[in-house]
């Protein structure tokens, strides 16, 4: 198993991956139906080793569906997906893939600590039990996202942004070579956004391959090497970051997320995204544990 030296940011050069010529992600003519509606209609996507690719597109363009298909959560109706040269299924080296789903704000039925959630990231493929020394690995992953001191907090006691960072730590704990993130900064508080950008910068410097769904490049703009834009389930752009439609790219544009802060959705005109205290839709207030 090849692992990256994500724990040593100062390391000179990361060891070259064994099969460096094989793309991390190779999707060919992927079609996905959810219920009766075709969500993806013939998507081709290749992500080579060490690339940082942003997946952009309007709401409903199929971004989330695509990444969920790529990591094997949703079945394809047609087409093929290969991760590290292996068709989706038991052959995929799952320990080399880390997935960060969109944050679900609803707390689970039973409280669980940040450390417990992160530890579940150590299980993959046929590994059903925690390896020896898992505590140290969990601590290391939480440290990477700046939450080492919150290991024993229940996840519902953490802010939305901190919860998101726990999910990132859960993906990082197995030291993956490919990180797939679905809107990691949507509705996330500022310190968490900054911590996230810092973490990503370090990981990319160490050679991490990244596919990230974004609404706007934001703090990640310096890292992103290629942008893929989806529209109505098809790739309409694959290359340099595109110019946003008038009124859609600026700081003042308010994106409406299905899971955004309720106030943002109901009264978008109430939130002006400009410099100053209100520069981000902030969800710090709905996440304080009762």
């Amino acid at each position, binding site marked *: 198993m090849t692992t990256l030296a994500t724990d040593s940011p100062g390391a000179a050069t990361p060891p070259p991956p064994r099969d460096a010529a094989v793309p991390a992600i190779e999707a060919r003519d992927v079609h996905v139906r959810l219920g009766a509606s075709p969500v993806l209609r013939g998507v081709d996507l290749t992500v080579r080793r060490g690339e940082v690719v942003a997946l952009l597109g309007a709401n409903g363009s199929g971004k989330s569906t695509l990444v*969920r298909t790529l*990591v*094997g*959560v949703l079945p394809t109706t047609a087409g093929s997906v290969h991760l590290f040269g292996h068709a989706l299924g*038991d052959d*995929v080296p*799952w320990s080399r*893939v880390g*997935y960060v*789903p969109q944050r*679900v704000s609803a707390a*689970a*039925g*039973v*409280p*669980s*600590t940040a450390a*417990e*959630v992160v*530890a*579940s*990231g*150590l*299980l*993959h*493929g*046929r590994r*059903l*039990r*925690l390896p020896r020394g898992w505590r140290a690995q969990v601590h290391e992953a939480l440290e990477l996202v700046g939450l080492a001191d919150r290991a*024993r*907090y*229940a996840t519902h*006691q*953490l*802010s939305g942004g*901190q919860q998101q960072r726990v999910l990132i730590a*859960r993906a990082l704990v197995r030291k993956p070579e490919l990180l*797939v993130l679905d809107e990691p900064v949507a509705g996330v*508080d*500022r*310190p968490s956004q900054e911590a996230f950008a810092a973490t990503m910068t370090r990981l990319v410097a160490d050679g991490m391959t990244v596919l990230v769904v974004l609404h706007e490049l934001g703090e990640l703009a310096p890292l992103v090497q290629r942008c893929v834009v989806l529209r109505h389930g098809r790739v309409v752009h694959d290359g340099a970051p595109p110019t946003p439609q008038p009124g859609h790219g600026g700081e003042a544009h308010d994106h409406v997320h299905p899971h955004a802060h309720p106030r943002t959705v109901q009264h978008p*005109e*109430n*939130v*002006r995204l400009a410099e100053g*205290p*209100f520069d981000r839709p*902030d969800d*710090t207030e709905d996440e*304080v*544990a009762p």
Partner: protein
Amino acid sequence: MSGLWEMITDPFMQRALVAALLVGVSAPVVGTYLVQKRLALLGDGIGHVALTGVALGWLVGAAMGLVPDDVLAVPGAVVAAVAGSVLIEVVRRRGRTSGDLALAILFYGGIAGGVLLIGLAGGSSGSLMAYLFGSISSVTLSDVWVTVALCGLILLIGLGLRAALFSVSHDEEFAQSSGLPVWALNMAVAVLAALTVTVAMRVVGLLLVSALMIVPVAIGQLVTRSFRRTMLVASVVGVAVCVTGLSITYWHNVSPGALIVVLAIGVYAVVAALHPVLARRQAPVDPHPDIPDDVAVSPAGAGRAAPQEECTP
């Protein structure tokens, strides 16, 4: 004191106490996964289906002329409960019918099937009472061994695969993206629930079986922050109420199953009532001290409406 010694040396009570102890430990372990999967009512659904199994075992036993004629009741319950839980899992997976609708249909089908079949077997609905509400005082030595074996299996899987079962119960999508055998793990939880229902049937009865899986977990999650501790507290509470409830019935003639469940709910009520008091005694800490304040508010009262005004462009 001599009364207590008398109880402990009574062979009937010894067998009953062993069964209660084992069920008290294992039921909350499985219940923790069910609560986390938001399937708290699954145990009830399986319990109802197990009733059909009891009646079916009875019918087969009577047809074969076995003595006593309910010797196949427990094996019948095991088979029906496992089949029912697998069916629920399949229906849930297909997503054709919503989970609670599927459960509801199982509830009705299980009870109706049981009553219908027991009539065919030559018994009356009264014969089902021992299974519906428990009959721990009549536990035989072979019953104890079956309980030991099944509880051992439940604890072995429930604790041994805790990390994997946690992963799949906590975030099924992430478990899937990790290449875990999600289907098999979900099935494992369902089958564990079915086995728990059949072993707990003797102690509290099929109608109350789910309470023993769920109420201790409800207590556990009030007082802890972690999954592991919730499971631990739930098991301790499970053992405590089972053994206490059973012991009380040695001196007072009440239904052990009902008493155990009432005790558990009593503990929940007390803990829930004390919870705000206990929580308040902890120092009121700022949950997010590292998050900078977003708006400047004027001190007390005057600033009530201010944030909204500042929001408007």
